């Protein structure tokens, strides 16, 4: 197995994009010290910024549910998940800022001003505790599958190293999600119907997390940041989770759902227009979520000021 602890880039250069593509095709890994093509730098940066924003928005959402989690053990799980997501965001913002496209502060300001993007699943409202279970079971699994597919190749060294730890931790979240779902699924009729309702709200956002079909010319595929097109990941997810949810006795909110002659599950065609509007921060809960994040940032300014001052003093 290739170790992730390899020597850093030695300022490698490429004569043109074709030369760079050959390097990628031969299994090369790009490091911060390399003179990477600007197209690669911009696209990989955008992807990492999106991932970082999503971790931060996810962590803030989970934080809001800590007081509502029933029982000490579930509070402990949500505390730990919140810390994980915020820690992941921190690591990703460090990698992103180092690429020299935007500073960390600029990335955060763009996020809070609604100028940048994050995962679709953080644009909807979680109504009951069962929504949190649906998110932990369905959305964490979708995020895990999507991140694992990026980790599988991922030609940008620092991102790949961070992803290794993120994917391991998201796998841990998934196990918590499975455990929490099992409790509701084997619970009372009220608990089961709460989950069924939450499933109606979260099934489609989870399936749509993988995005519309990839453009076959997507440079992120050619540069092996994405190892598989969106539709392949989405389909694998549907094939796995339809039978699992049905096995627990839940109904998938899709009247057209059926198995084709090969036994593959086919969903109804997806209308991507609402997703596109949502991703431009026009989702049902986008405004409130962004405002919550912005307020969190301004409320904690004094902590950053205090840290900056103590760092300056230490440097004197």
């Amino acid at each position, binding site marked *: 197995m290739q170790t992730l602890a390899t020597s850093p880039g030695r300022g490698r250069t490429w004569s043109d994009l074709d030369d760079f593509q050959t390097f990628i095709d031969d299994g090369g890994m790009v490091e911060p010290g390399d003179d990477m093509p600007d197209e690669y730098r911009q696209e990989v940066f955008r992807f990492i910024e999106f991932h970082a924003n999503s971790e931060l928005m996810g962590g803030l959402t989970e934080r809001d549910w800590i007081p509502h989690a029933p029982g000490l053990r579930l509070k402990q799980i949500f505390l730990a998940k919140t810390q994980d997501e915020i820690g992941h965001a921190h690591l990703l913002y*460090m990698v992103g800022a180092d690429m020299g496209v935007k500073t960390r502060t600029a990335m955060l300001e763009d996020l809070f001003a609604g100028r940048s993007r994050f995962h679709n699943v953080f644009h909807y409202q979680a109504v009951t505790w069962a929504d949190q279970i649906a998110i932990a079971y369905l959305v964490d699994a979708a995020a895990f599958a999507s991140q694992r597919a990026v980790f599988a190749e991922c030609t940008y060294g620092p991102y790949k190293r961070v992803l290794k730890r993120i994917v391991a931790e998201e796998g841990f979240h998934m196990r918590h999600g499975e455990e929490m779902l099992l409790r509701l699924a084997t619970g009372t009729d009220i608990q089961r119907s709460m989950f069924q309702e939450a499933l109606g709200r979260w099934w489609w956002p989870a399936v749509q997390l993988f995005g519309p079909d990839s453009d076959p010319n997507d440079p992120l595929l050619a540069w092996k940041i994405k190892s598989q097109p969106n539709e392949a990941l989405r389909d694998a997810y549907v094939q796995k989770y339809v039978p699992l949810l049905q096995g627990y006795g839940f109904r998938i909110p899709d009247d057209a759902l059926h198995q084709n002659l090969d036994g593959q599950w086919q969903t109804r065609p997806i209308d991507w227009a609402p997703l596109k509007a949502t991703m431009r921060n026009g989702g049902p809960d986008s405004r409130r979520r962004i405002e919550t994040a912005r307020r969190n940032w301004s409320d904690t300014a004094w902590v950053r000021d205090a840290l900056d001052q103590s760092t300056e003093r230490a440097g004197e």
Partner: protein
Amino acid sequence: MNAAPASDGLTDGVLLDEVRAAVASVADPEYPGVSIVDLGLVESVDVIDGAAIVGLIPTFSGCPALDMIAADVRTAVGALSNASACDVHWLPGPVWSAERITANGRNILANDYTVVLRRKDGGLQCPVCGSHGVTRQSLAGPTRCREIAWCSACRNPIEVMR
């Protein structure tokens, strides 16, 4: 209750080796590939009259993985045909510290996870490039047992067990 397996000092001794191997096969849920033995979580393994008793210590109290680790140990030991029972206990002491991580554990953490331990003199060496130009960025990382640092030589964020 079923008849307990014939138990004397000799069979308990054989079983003890099997139980130790089963416990060592359990990986930490947050570090797939790293055994809980290598992380220093296993304080004691005993076999008494065919029953296994495993004493574990947590990295941090309040770690959210405790129930999962204990369940994984029970599953691994429960799969042994000779073990009549398996009790897993979280012990109140000794207190875990990063020094308990074995050399093998340190190697896997550094090479696969780019996670390092502080040296005895407090210094840090980057697991990616070997540089000493590593500075702390945040006392809290994604988990309670890790802090975030930055290597200015190879420009990678790394994490430090604490």
